[in-house]
Each structure stands twice: as C-alpha cells, then as structure tokens.
C-alpha cells in the first residue's frame, strides 16, 4: 500500500519537475549583422566590349504587389506529336563563318515557311517556298542564308527555343537536299521571342510558327 502511494507521489513529483524545467528561457543573444550586399557586383561602367565586362545598371526597388488574378487559359487540345522528321543531321557551320556579312530580310520575305503547332515538319504546301529559296541561292552563288526559327507563345520558353531551332534545321536539311552547300546555310532560333503577330489567338499564332530567311552577302572588300 505504502509503496503504491510512494509511486504515485513519484509520478506527480516528476511531472512537476518536468513542467518547471520546460520553462527555462534561453539567454538573450545579440546578433551583429554584416552590411548587406557585400558580395554584390560592383558597377564597372556602361556597356563595354563583350569579351571584357558586362555593363550594369542599378534599378530602384518597388513595392510588393499581390496579384491573384489568373492568366487566360489557352486551351491546347490534342497536342500534335510528330514523327521523326530529320533522319540525318548535318553539322552546323561554325559561328564565324558569316560573321559581319550584311543582312537583308526583305529579299526572301515572301518565302517565310510556316509550321503546324508543335511541329518542325516542312509541310508539302510549304516546300515550293523552300525551293524558291534554293533557286535564289543557286542564282546568287556568293550569298549565304540564315534561317531563323520561331514559335508561337503556346509553349514554355526553353522548349520553344529548342523547337524553333529544329524548325530552322528542318528547312536547312531541305535546302541541302535540293543541292545547296551546307556551308551556305546557318540556323538560329528565337523561340517565342519575336512574334510576327502579338495577338493571342490562332490567327496570330499561325503567323508566328515560322522560319524567316535572312540573306547574307559577303562584305565589300
């Protein structure tokens, strides 16, 4: 009997001891903080030649805005997934091949090639334009051409940058197939950065899924 009472008292005593110890406060500390932004890049002046420094500007900060509106939903139903279109890949030209060659965007503007959504396949309806570009290049043997691949806005940024390049490569392959020397054809991609039409509907999007042709002529000596 007495032992049971003692055990009970032991439990109560321990509970009280625990409760008391739990209230211990940690000592107050003083934290010295370093000046902020000690590792920020120092300003090296305005835009300088590429191989040296990048120019910098300091912008003012702004208030926090809380925008809970939702972006318009662009319905994408049945995304078209395309079969393999480029059975071979021809190595690209080195970047300096046509460095400094004056550009002309107007000569072949009418031959801009358009693509289906999420596709880099050159459609049969577009092939005559590629043939026209090939004809121009054959008639102007000193020129070269840069193919700029573009996408509509309905894709993520890096996916579109990759897709735009494949669109340019697809037309490049077609030009090579038509007898144009690979060294005369460069490619680049702007993803969705350079829409022809800034609208947000299919009428605009179909104008943006395109390859533009930029004629390059050798610099006058």
């Amino acid at each position: 009997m007495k032992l049971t009472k003692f055990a009970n008292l032991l439990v109560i005593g321990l509970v009280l001891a625990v409760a008391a110890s739990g209230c211990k406060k940690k000592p107050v500390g003083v934290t010295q903080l370093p000046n902020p932004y000690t590792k920020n890049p120092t300003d090296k002046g305005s835009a300088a030649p590429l191989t040296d420094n990048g120019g910098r500007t300091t912008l003012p900060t702004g208030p926090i805005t809380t925008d809970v509106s939702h972006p318009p939903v662009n319905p994408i139903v049945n995304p078209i997934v395309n079969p393999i279109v480029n059975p071979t890949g021809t190595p690209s030209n080195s970047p300096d091949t046509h460095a400094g060659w004056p550009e002309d965007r107007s000569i072949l503007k009418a031959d801009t090639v358009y693509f289906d959504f999420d596709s880099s396949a050159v459609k049969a309806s577009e092939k005559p334009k590629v043939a026209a570009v090939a004809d121009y290049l054959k008639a102007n043997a000193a020129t070269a051409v840069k193919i700029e691949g573009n996408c509509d806005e309905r894709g993520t940024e890096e996916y579109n940058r990759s897709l735009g390049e494949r669109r340019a490569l697809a037309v490049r392959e077609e030009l090579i197939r038509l007898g144009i020397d690979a060294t005369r054809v460069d490619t680049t991609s702007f993803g969705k950065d350079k829409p022809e039409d800034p609208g947000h509907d299919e009428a605009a999007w179909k104008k943006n899924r395109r390859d533009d042709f930029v004629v390059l002529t050798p610099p006058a000596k």
Partner: protein
Amino acid sequence: MKYIMRFNQIFAAVSLIAVSGSAYSQIDITNVVVVPGNTKPIYISMSGFTGEAVQVLRFDLYVQGFAFTNAAAAQYLLSGSNNGNLEGRVTDPHNKTTLVSKVYSGAALRRQAHAFADDFVQALGRKPIAQTKIAFKGESGRSGEIYIADFDGYGSQAVTKDNTIVAAPCWVPGHMALYYVSYRLNNADIFYHNLSSGDRKAFARYGGSNISPAVSPDGSKVAMILSKDGWTDLYVCNSDGSGLKRLTKSPQDESSPCWSPDGKWICYASKDKERRALSKISPAGGEPQRIPTSGVLSPTEPDWSPDGKLIAFTSQGAGFTICVVPATGGTATPLVAGEDPSWAPNSRTLAYGRRQGGHYALSLLDVPTKQYKDVSRIPGISSQSQPSWAK
C-alpha cells in the same frame, strides 16, 4: 497484481523523464510526413512589429508554409519590436519553450527581419532562405536583360546592359557567377559571367544554337542543348569548356536539362515514343531512362530538389501547371498555374513564372501547402521570367 500496478506507475514515471529529456523537440516538425500540395500550414501569430518588418516577416513565412492567426490558435508566437534594431522572440506556448530570442543590428530593417525569419525556421530544423538570391530574365519590349535580386524581388540589379534577347540564367552553385543565353553576338550563345569581377566570356559558341545551360551541383560540369551537329541534343562539358560530350543523338527535341543533387544524373525534357516525357541520363553517357509523370500531360522544364526527393516541372495541358513528382518517377501532383520552376535551398519553396496575358510575373510557391505569392516587381519591366534560385 499489486506488484504489476506499482511497476506500471514507476514505468510511467521513468518514461516521462525519458520523454521530457528532449522536451524542446517533443513536436518534431521535420519528421511530419509532408504531402506536396496537401499539407496544412503551420499557424503562427505575430505581434509588436511595425511597418516594413511586418511586411517582410509575412512574406518570408507565408512562402515557407506558415499561416497567420491569433495567439490562442497559434503553434508559435512571434513577438518583438523594431524601433531601431529589430528584437525578435519566438515561443512555443504549448511546450512552453523559447525558440529564438535575439536583437539584430548592423543592417537595414529588411535584412534584420529576414535574419529573424531565418532564425525561426532554423530553430525548426529547416534550411533558411530569407537571405538568398534569385536570377531571372527581365524584358521590356523586344529586348531583355539578366537580373539578380533578393529572393523576394527586392534589391534587383541588371547584370547585363546589352539590349538584346537573353534567356535561361543559371547560377554557379556557391558562387556569384551565372551562365545564361544571350544573342549579343547575333546568335543564341551561352555566356559565363563572373558577377564579382564583372568579367564574362562566351562559354559555348558553337554553330547553330547554344541554349539552356545547367551547372552541376559541384560546379565542375555544364549541361546544355546544342545544335552544332545538326539536331538539338543534350551535351555536357567541363566548366572550363573542355571535354565536350554528346549525350543524346535524336532528331526529336531535348530541352531544359537539370542535375540531380548528387551529380549522377541529368534530367531533361524529351520525346519518348512520340510522347513528351522527362528522362534522365548519366553525364558519362549511356541509355536514357524515362521518369514517368503519370496523371499530367507534356512535362517540361524540370528542376530536381536539393534534397533529391522531388522533381518539379511544367506540365502543358490546357494551360501551364507547376507539378512535382517523386524523383524516381510516379504519379505527378499538379500545384498551381505557372512555368519554369526553380527550387529554393529548403527543397520546399519554388520560384516560377506566372503567365499574365503575354507577360510573366515571378512568384514563390510553398509546395507542401500550395501557398504562393508574387515577388516584388521591377518598375518599367513588363515581364520577369525564368528564375534561377541561388544555392
């Protein structure tokens, strides 16, 4: 019988001592099972702070999965003042413990408040993020520049002034340096930019397009998408540019590489049997493996969490959705509308872009609770996108 009863009482007393020996961690937050998108926030209350300190603490803690309530209902009480230096205290009213009790000095109020928020989450066993940085692309009109800022968007600075198209900034882990794409030389080229010295150089300037740089966690390698060999393929090289290795040979698209935190895998967006999918491949080469993301369409733009457990990505269905999937693959969890996620060092907060018409706003999402909030916007810049969180 009597003997057993007495034993039980003594056993209970001894157990109480054993448990109470670790009273400070009696509720172990880090071991709670966290379900992405389906975890309740931790409720806290705040008192005594004013002005910008309140704004900073509310933002910092909301995007780390805390929600604010009254003191009676709160699990933790934040109190203090900011007349001059910020004084901050965090107590646990139920366990009667003090987690933080500090005075902060020597910096602007925002920084002091960020430091207090960091001390609070660290007391719970989490990695702090309130004094970290992000990089992103800022655009006005047709041209853009690369920016860095505090994780909440404050203190932004343009690190380029080229008036050209830029894309895809990526931090070098642990360093004030970035890789990014710039069309400064009339083509999509990858640059390396040392932000401390201001020096930069064209890192990948092969023929065709050079896009989507991703630095390995130990900084020794860079993965990227190149079209130099005629297709858009995944390549990897050493951080000095040497040792270029082609990892994929496929006429279908690869894009958006990212690294596993142990550096053993590169995860990227691919087409697999004509369906868009996430895949992974060893940087040493070999066969790619598919990472299933069942339940959502067209995964792209993956980012691997620093703790290795989850891959966040963009799903493109009817609109764009931020999703997470276990890193081993499985059922994906859609979270919020958005694109291009980048993990914070705490493996629970994501920076991402929210589409608004033709432009983007940057936002931060707490994956377990789905709480999200936009970062501060730069005046005069119409679109901020493609965030990379410094780790």
